[in-house]
């Protein structure tokens, strides 16, 4: 919910984003295909997409595998109660582990919810995921006052976030 890193986009950027947020066309010249669709110059599309990547508005470009299909069946949301004054240092350590896909600082809701550090871990089986959780616990050491792991048992809705949805 922090708005500090908002970036100004012009109409051309917005058109490119809306046309590509569901994906790129698989053609030999995909940027030309996008340009044709939007009635823009191909060089301009290449330049703008390069800039969006540089600015971090595009995190990366590539294929996104369905991790269940790759055999990652044990996906846990691990949550940890660590001292606030240490969370940035600890969050970076946990986020740097190669089995952690997302790592965030979120607020506690005492007394129901004491956890402030969230890390998603992905294993091919339960044992692997359990080992990952132990590894994080080792890294946090005494800073870990309590923790738990939440597994998703059902996808109730999955529409993805798109610009245009909320406008």
């Amino acid at each position, binding site marked *: 919910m922090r708005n500090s890193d908002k970036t100004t986009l012009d109409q051309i950027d917005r058109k490119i984003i809306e046309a590509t947020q569901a994906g790129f066309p698989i053609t*030999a010249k995909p940027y030309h295909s996008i340009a044709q669709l939007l009635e823009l110059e191909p060089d301009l599309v290449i330049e703008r997409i390069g800039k969006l990547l540089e600015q971090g508005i595009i995190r990366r470009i590539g294929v996104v595998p369905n991790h269940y299909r790759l055999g990652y069946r044990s996906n846990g949301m691990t949550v940890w109660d660590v001292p606030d004054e240490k969370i940035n240092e600890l969050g970076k350590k946990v986020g740097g582990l190669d089995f952690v896909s997302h790592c965030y600082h979120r607020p506690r809701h005492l007394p129901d919810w004491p956890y402030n550090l969230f890390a998603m871990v992905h294993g091919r089986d339960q044992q692997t995921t359990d080992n990952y959780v132990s590894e994080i616990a080792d890294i946090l050491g005494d800073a870990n006052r309590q923790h738990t792991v939440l597994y998703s048992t059902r996808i109730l809705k999955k529409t993805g976030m798109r610009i245009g949805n909320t406008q």
Partner: protein
Amino acid sequence: MNEVDRSIINHMQEGFPVCERPFAILAEQLNLEEKELMQRVQALLDDGTLSRFGPLYNIEMLGGVYCLVAMQIPEHDLEKVIETVNSYPEVAHNYERTHELNVWFVLAAETESQLEGLLTDIEKQTGYPTFAMPKLDEYFVRLKFDA
């Protein structure tokens, strides 16, 4: 999935070139023909091994506010509450999880005040409190998986 597909998935999760013939460049690195690479990526998308191909946007930099929300719903009311929560177009995804806080969804709104309004409305419509868990800091987003 064969070895070629595996190497494509491992090689193509980031760094898709931004130039005239990106598939040609990648095909050379993977020792494939451009056309074969394109066909394989298409086939992996078609059979669901890949969920998408293209840019992954940092949606928070595009405007709007996003918030993870949790709720604690007893079994007897669960399906009714899920239906109510899912009926909001602002609810992007929603998971049932193994905890007393058992319903977890992401709300997307235009402004902070709209988000607050949505939370209040969801509480009124469902009769249960919401626990807003906005991202205060992000340490890492990887989303890369070995095939």
